[in-house]
């Protein structure tokens, strides 16, 4: 039984985009529980990827392929997990703040979070505080992530948090921020809940904020 779960984990590490969904289906056909497949197959695989990345044995493009592979496996299991009322994996709303068009860092964090099992909704870039507010109302995320590359646009992070407070939504979400000119001190000052100093740390922070990391 555990053999197929091992194969799924290995498939994730190898980035076997075609093979892993097939293996997931096979596991379901063999009667394995969806939650088990996630925990002992998908997450074990991604966990190993994370370990190898941290010691420099796997690189970003490889990690992203693994994350994509895990995501494709997870999609198959999503309806089953929802049915069984299984553990919620966390939804994260991401965006680059107003005045800023830079999004490669945000995209990378988003992909890492997907690989960590999150549902990621990317609202795009150059986003007014109102857009974040609407996004929170529509998607009801657990976490809101904001990104900026320019020192001048960092202010929009503060404005957006203020807008959340005024809309009565601040205590409904956890807020994390990141981007080249941002640091932990600034995150504290504006009342954010977390700060990611790079993409990997961003995904780790998201897990911590959710209480699963």
């Amino acid at each position, binding site marked *: 039984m555990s053999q197929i779960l091992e194969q799924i984990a290995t498939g994730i590490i190898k980035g076997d985009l075609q093979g892993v969904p097939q293996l997931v289906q096979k596991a379901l056909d063999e009667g394995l529980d969806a939650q088990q497949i996630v925990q002992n197959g998908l997450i074990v695989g991604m966990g190993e990827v994370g370990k190898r*990345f941290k010691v*420099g044995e796997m*690189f*970003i*493009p490889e990690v992203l392929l693994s994350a994509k592979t895990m995501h494709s496996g997870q999609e198959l299991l999503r309806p089953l997990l929802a049915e069984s009322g299984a553990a919620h994996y966390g939804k994260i709303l991401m965006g680059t703040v107003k*005045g800023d*068009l*830079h999004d*490669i*860092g945000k995209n*990378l964090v988003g992909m890492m979070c997907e690989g960590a099992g999150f549902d990621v909704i990317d609202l795009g870039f*150059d986003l007014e505080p109102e857009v974040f507010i609407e996004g929170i109302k529509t998607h009801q995320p657990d976490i809101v992530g904001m990104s900026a590359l320019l*020192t*001048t646009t*960092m*202010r929009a992070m*503060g*404005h957006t948090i203020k807008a959340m407070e005024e809309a009565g939504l601040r205590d409904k979400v956890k807020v994390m921020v990141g981007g*080249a*000119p941002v640091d932990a*001190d*600034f995150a504290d*000052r*504006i009342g954010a809940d977390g700060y990611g100093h*790079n*993409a990997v740390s961003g995904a780790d922070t998201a897990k911590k904020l959710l209480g699963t990391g």
Partner: protein
Amino acid sequence: MMVNRNNYDVNATPLFQVLTEDQIEAIYYAALSVLYETGVRVYDKEGVDVAHAGGAIVEETTERSSLVKVPHYMVDKARATVPSKVVVIGPDRQYKMELYKNQIYYGGGSDTPFTIDPYTGQRRRSTYNDVKNFARIGQALPNYDFHMSLGITQDTAVGTYDRWQYLAMLEGISKPINITAVDIEGVRDQLEMAYIRVGGKEEWKKGPIFSLYIEPVSPLSHSQEVIQKLLFCCDNDIPFVYTPCPLAGATAPTTLAGLLVQALAESLFGIVLSQLRKPGSQLIIGGLMSNMDMLSTIYCYGSPEMALLSAGYTDITKWLRVPEYETAGCSDAKIFDEQSAMEGAINIATAGLIGGNMIHDVGYLDSGLTSSMEQMVASNEVIDMIKRILRGIPVTPETMALDVMEQVGPGGHFMEHDHTYERFKTEIWRPQLIDRQNWENWNMAGAKRYGERVHERVIEILETETEPLLEDAMFKEMRRICELADARHKSEELDMKMFV
């Protein structure tokens, strides 16, 4: 015997070449395809209209942007009027940058949020005073030709920092400056400040004292702020740098030729739009081009690819005959150390050897997040060495010195010869901070590392009193512009201290 040897002593400068003409042309025609078939996304209605009126195809228009496709003939037309030479001068006309093929100028980099405190060595957010001090260092270094802020004034209002930053720079340096601006209002304010500095608009026309740094976003995206700045510069005779910063593997193809094609397409769009707006508008194209590190995800300032890409792009701009923005004197090291000296030396060498024009980012550490005075001072000496190498080896009867060899003869020495006496100072390079003593003398002098001597020089420059560059009345007039800008934008600031 008289032999006609016309130009045998020309071509004394050693040549570095990355791309052949055929390769350059392949990249150029590929860039034209990208512009015509893939197009660029433009987030400014006025910019889209200008391009459209000039013959561009406009598609996929949304509320915020349009996809603009540029036919080849528009690029040809633009190339006919784009200047092959751009001049930026210092406000007192003592310093001048004439940017055209093979003319090399080195200078700083802009808007680093952090800086290394020259006294404590601490990495902290930069302030108005830091920006002023970096300018003073730049003023004192002979191989530093133009300035960029090497900091951000984070103890002033954030949304209008660009005005304060310019003021701080003008306090410290009288060399040409490459400014940044928050938006066109920021450019307008700094232009007003420049008019005050030089004595009016007509004086500006005799020689602009700043160029504006404008950076479109890779891949192929030109934001509203970027386009508005470009149009404003064209309308107001402000030379500008139009440079994307593509990242191999992230915002550009991972293969370097692909990155060059994309960067060129991005820059060519700037050329097309500017020449449509006002034929003869002066721009400098180029880029900070590099790879994303696939472990740390940083933008690599010290990588061999960065040096190689910049040099390759220089070959392209030489062929195009448009002035170029190059990158050197920078590193991914977090402090001034062996890594920063090494990475900086390599990219300074390649930039000088290839003949880059406006070679910026001297003093940049930590992938452009932190500025370092020590890196500036050390780079100044490396540049000096490269310039010596670029003087090459002229081959003439005088330099071959056969008669001198005859006089000295086998087994003699040259130390007392007139030829040596007359030539040694101009022929041979002398170091300033590089140490050449024998071990005993070096040890007796304190056994100092190079970094210590560089640090001492930084402190020496900072503590040397210099004549103020701005008269009090002029300073106050310019400061007023900064204060008025702050007042207009007060409501946009956060009601808390953001930094420091």
